[in-house]
């Protein structure tokens, strides 16, 4: 980074003591699709809207990838999808991973609000850091450590030459020896531990809703229902398993993204 013409930072202080670029980054986050997280007594749930910008967007490319792992019983549909994928792969291979909730380690997952491409970069870096920790200490990385390292990366980009801050806020959900944890990381690199939080559009309504509904002894299923209700609050149009994504981690310490069929089941329970 010192080689380029811009060896000075583009994020500079304003006379009032604010870092304007970070404020703007937070605005970018604020105009992204709503996402939220809730920490229950025996797990964590994170959820986000997944509204496609137009009806012309190819829905199959935005399908759950985790559903493809267990394809033993559906060889034919897998083949169909693979043809689709092969065509897409050559032209738009970055579109392949349009799953918004991503897994970082077997027991930590993450969702974002803001710019998708920035999120992809952070996910890659975080996975690498988690893997390096595992190679050194031969144990899974604790949630706080991973959050701290990701936040450090985000802070780097506010103080390095020629780069801009990341336009995403992350919600990191994990379950380790200290129990279930939920962290929010901002573009500035600061991180907070939350019992329940929301980001993106409609954040103030979502947060008031969560404040009213949250109880300390919630179970994971209750938390999923609350998450769905919170998303429903500010949702424009018909909510279904296809336009929201939910990720959960329970006492089994295995993070997974729910399939759209499972989300539809939860939706039916809520109504």
């Amino acid at each position, binding site marked *: 980074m010192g080689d380029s013409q811009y060896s000075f930072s583009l994020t500079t202080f304003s006379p009032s003591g604010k870092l304007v670029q970070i404020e703007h980054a937070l605005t970018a986050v604020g105009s992204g699709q709503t996402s939220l997280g809730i920490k229950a007594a025996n797990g964590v749930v994170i959820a986000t809207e997944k509204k496609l910008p137009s009806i012309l967007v190819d829905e199959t490319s935005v399908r759950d*990838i*985790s559903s*493809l*792992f267990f394809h*033993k019983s559906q060889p034919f549909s897998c083949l169909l999808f693979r043809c689709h994928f092969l065509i897409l792969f050559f032209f738009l291979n970055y579109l392949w*991973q349009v799953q918004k909730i991503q*897994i*970082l380690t077997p027991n930590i997952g993450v969702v974002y609000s803001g710019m998708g491409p920035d999120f992809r970069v952070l996910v*890659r870096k975080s*996975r*690498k850091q988690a*893997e*390096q920790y*595992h*190679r050194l200490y031969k144990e899974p990385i604790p949630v706080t450590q991973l959050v701290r390292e990701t936040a450090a990366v985000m802070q780097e980009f506010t103080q390095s030459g020629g780069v801009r801050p990341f336009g995403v806020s992350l919600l990191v959900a994990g379950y380790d020896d200290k129990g279930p944890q939920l962290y929010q990381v901002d573009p500035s690199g600061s991180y907070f531990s939350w019992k329940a939080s929301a980001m993106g559009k409609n954040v103030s309504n979502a947060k008031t809703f969560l404040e009213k509904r949250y109880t300390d002894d919630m179970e994971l299923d209750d938390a999923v229902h609350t998450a769905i209700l919170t998303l429903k609050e500010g949702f424009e149009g018909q909510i279904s398993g296809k336009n929201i994504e939910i990720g959960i981690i329970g006492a089994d310490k295995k993070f997974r993204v729910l399939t759209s069929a499972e989300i539809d089941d939860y939706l039916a329970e809520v109504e």
Partner: protein
Amino acid sequence: MSKSAVDVPPMGGFNFDLCRRNDMLAKKGVNPPSFRKTGTTIVGIVFQDGIILGADTRATEGPIVCDKNCEKIHYMAPNIYCCGAGTAADTEAVTDMVSSQLQLHRYHTGRESRVITALTLLKKHLFNYQGYVSAALVLGGVDCTGPHLHTIYPHGSTDTLPFATMGSGSLAAMAIFESKYREGLNRDEGIKLVCEAICSGVFNDLGSGSNVDVCVITKGHKEYLRNHMLPNPRTYISSRGYTFPKKTEVLITKITPLKDKEVVIEGGDAMEE
């Protein structure tokens, strides 16, 4: 002392300056240090449902057995395992590193790892180090394209085979395979054949010994049978253990100090005039 008429500028490539000196030293009996070899027998076969890998469990440091029950079958991915022969540190470091890379690749692609990916990552690394990373590996696994078995040599070349052996006991094990291997073995026959091959290495090669580890990999399932066979149990000469004869009885104890203790009194009164 005549100087050369033309001064040759320094060039790249191997510098042969010390070769004459080394030759002279070797003639006088001073040999360069030889590499530490760790003997091993590692094998792999393809059977009808997948792959079976086998390894002995002896680690040697020259003529000494330093570990009687070490693990030579390393984890690479949930569906891929790798046996390592050669320097133990090299095999462990290289398999650990590639296993890490495969995990990151799995997260990024959202798919099960393929054996050919592990193969390419390993051979790239080993070729880069021109054989100095002394790791001879038998890599086996089952992925979406079927079961695969490969051998990787320290210099980076690879073979794809239905049955493979590596290590100092490889000839003994290969003899068993060449005579008894056939396609379409079932699980029990396959494990029996692998154990036979390893035992042949264990009993006929000094660098291999102790127990037999087996790993069976099939589509969607793996079984790591640690110490599947223990053909070398420890037998003690006496089952009661060791007892030592009684020492001489103590009759009297007398302690004589060797030097008289001198007592120094400080702070006494000054001498009076």
